[in-house]
C-alpha cells in the first residue's frame, strides 16, 4: 500500500519537476554555449545579449525548480488531505501514518532531485570556463569539501555525526509545516488566517528558543565535547521530527475536520 501511495505522490510531483528540470538544464547549457561563443568577441553582440538572457532564464528556472519542489511537497499534503481531494484520500484503505509517510518520502525525493538537477546545471554552467567568478566558485566548493574530508580524516566519528544530523534534519522542515497545517484545519472558521498565524508564531518561537536556549546549550556542550554538542543537536532535531509526526498522524486519525 505504501509503495502505491509513494508511486502516485511521486508522479504528482515529478510531472511538474521534470519540465522545470529540463528547462533548467537547457537554459544552463544555452547560457554556457552562448557565453563561450560571446567570450571570443570584444563587443556585446547578439550572442552576448543571448547569453545574458539565457542566464536570466536559467536563474528564474532554477529558483522555480527549487521553489516548486518545496511547494509541491506541501501543497500535495494540504490539497489531498484538507481540501476537496481529501474525500478521495480519506476513502483509501490506508492508515493516516502510511498516507503521511508516503507524502513525506515523495516530497523529500522531489527536493533531492531538484537539488541534484540544480547541482548538475551549475556544473554545466561552469564547465570548461576560465578564471574569475568561476575560479572563486570552484575554490569555495573545494574548501567546503576539504572541510568535510578534513573532519573525516581527523575525526571519523564527528563526520558520521554530521551525516546523521543532516539525515535527521532533512524531513524536519516538512514535518513542522505538516503539523502546522494539521493544527490549522482544527479551526472551523478562518482556517487560513489561523494557519498563517500559527506558522508565524511557531517560527518566531523557534527563533527565540534557538537564540536564548538551544545555541547557548549547544555552545556549552561543545566546550565539554564536540560529540556531546553533535548528539544534542541530533536529539533535538529528532525530537522535533517525532513530535510533529505524531501530532500530524494523531490529528488525521482522531481530529480530522473535513468540511
Amino acid at each position, binding site marked *: 500500500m505504501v509503495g502505491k501511495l509513494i508511486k*502516485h505522490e511521486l508522479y504528482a510531483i515529478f510531472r511538474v519537476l521534470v519540465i522545470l528540470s529540463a528547462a533548467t538544464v537547457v537554459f544552463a547549457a544555452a547560457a554556457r554555449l552562448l557565453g563561450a561563443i560571446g567570450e571570443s568577441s570584444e563587443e556585446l553582440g547578439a550572442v552576448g545579449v543571448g547569453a545574458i538572457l539565457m542566464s536570466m532564464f536559467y536563474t528564474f528556472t532554477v529558483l522555480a525548480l527549487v521553489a516548486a519542489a518545496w511547494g509541491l511537497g506541501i501543497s500535495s499534503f494540504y490539497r489531498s488531505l484538507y481540501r476537496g*481531494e481529501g474525500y478521495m484520500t480519506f476513502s483509501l*484503505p490506508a492508515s493516516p501514518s502510511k498516507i503521511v509517510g508516503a507524502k513525506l518520502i515523495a516530497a523529500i525525493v522531489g527536493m533531492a532531485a531538484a537539488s541534484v538537477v540544480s547541482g548538475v546545471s551549475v556544473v554545466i554552467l561552469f564547465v570548461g570556463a576560465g578564471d574569475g567568478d568561476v575560479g572563486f566558485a570552484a575554490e569555495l566548493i573545494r574548501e567546503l569539501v576539504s572541510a568535510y574530508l578534513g573532519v573525516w580524516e581527523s575525526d571519523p566519528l564527528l563526520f558520521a555525526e554530521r551525516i546523521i544530523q543532516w539525515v535527521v534534519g532533512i524531513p524536519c522542515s516538512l514535518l513542522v509545516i505538516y503539523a502546522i497545517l494539521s493544527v490549522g484545519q482544527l479551526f472551523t472558521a478562518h482556517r487560513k488566517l489561523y494557519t498563517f498565524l500559527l506558522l508565524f508564531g511557531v517560527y518566531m518561537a523557534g527563533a527565540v528558543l534557538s537564540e536564548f536556549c538551544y545555541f547557548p546549550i549547544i555552545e556549552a556542550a561543545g566546550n565539554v565535547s564536540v560529540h556531546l554538542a553533535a548528539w544534542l543537536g541530533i536529539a533535538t532535531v529528532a525530537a522535533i521530527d517525532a513530535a510533529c509526526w505524531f501530532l500530524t498522524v494523531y490529528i488525521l486519525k482522531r481530529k480530522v475536520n473535513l468540511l
Partner: protein
Amino acid sequence: MAILTCKELYKSYSKTPALLGVDLCIEEGGIVGLLGPNGSGKSTLIKLAMGMLQPTSGSILIDGKPPCAATKAITAYLPDADFLTPWMRVSQAVGYSADFFADFDRARAEAMLERLGIGLNQKIKPLSKGNREKVSLILTMARRAKLYILDEPIAGVDPAARDFILDTVMRNKPEDATIFLCTHLIADVEPVLTHAIFLNRGKVVLDEAVDSVRARTGKSLDELFREEFRW
C-alpha cells in the same frame, strides 16, 4: 449482521449541534434512503461513517468496526463534493482507483465510460460538472463493495442525468450489497428505496421499511416528507 450501526451518536461543530443522539441499525442488503432537508445532518452522518469527522460522543460502526482502513476497503463512497484530481486524465483516475481498491472492476468502469462517450484520454479539469459527477459515480459503482455510500448523487444535475445515475446505481449494485443513499430529492429516489430514514435537525424521526411506511400511513415517502418537514 448490521452493516452500519450508530449508538447515541452526537456531533457538534463548536457549539452548533449537527447530530443529536442518533441510533441506527442498518442490515445488509437493500437500498436505504437517508432523507432530510438541507442542514438536517445527513452529510455529517456520512462523513462520520467514512472517518472524515470524529463523533463528539457515541459510536458509529461499519460491519462491526469503527471507521478505519479495513472498513474503507469494503465501503465505496461518493461524496457531494468534487473529489477528482483536476490535472489527471480519466484513465489516470481509473488507474488510481484500480490501484488502491482490490474490488475495483476496471473493465466495468471503462465500459460505463464508453457508454457515456467519455474518453479515457480526456482531462478531468475541462469536463462539465455533469460529466465529472458521472465519472465520480462510475468510479464508485465500478467497485464490488459491501456498502455504497452516495451523498447527494442526483443533486445539481438535470432530470435525464438523474435517471442515468439511478439506473447506473441499480444496474451495478451487487445483490448482497447495501446502498446508503443520502438525498433531499425524495420523489426521484423513492421508487428504488427499500428502507427510509428521515433525519430532522440532527434527530432520527423515521426509521422504517418503505413498504411498511406506505401500508401504515397510506402515503408515499414524498408526501410524508413534505408533511414532516413543512416550513
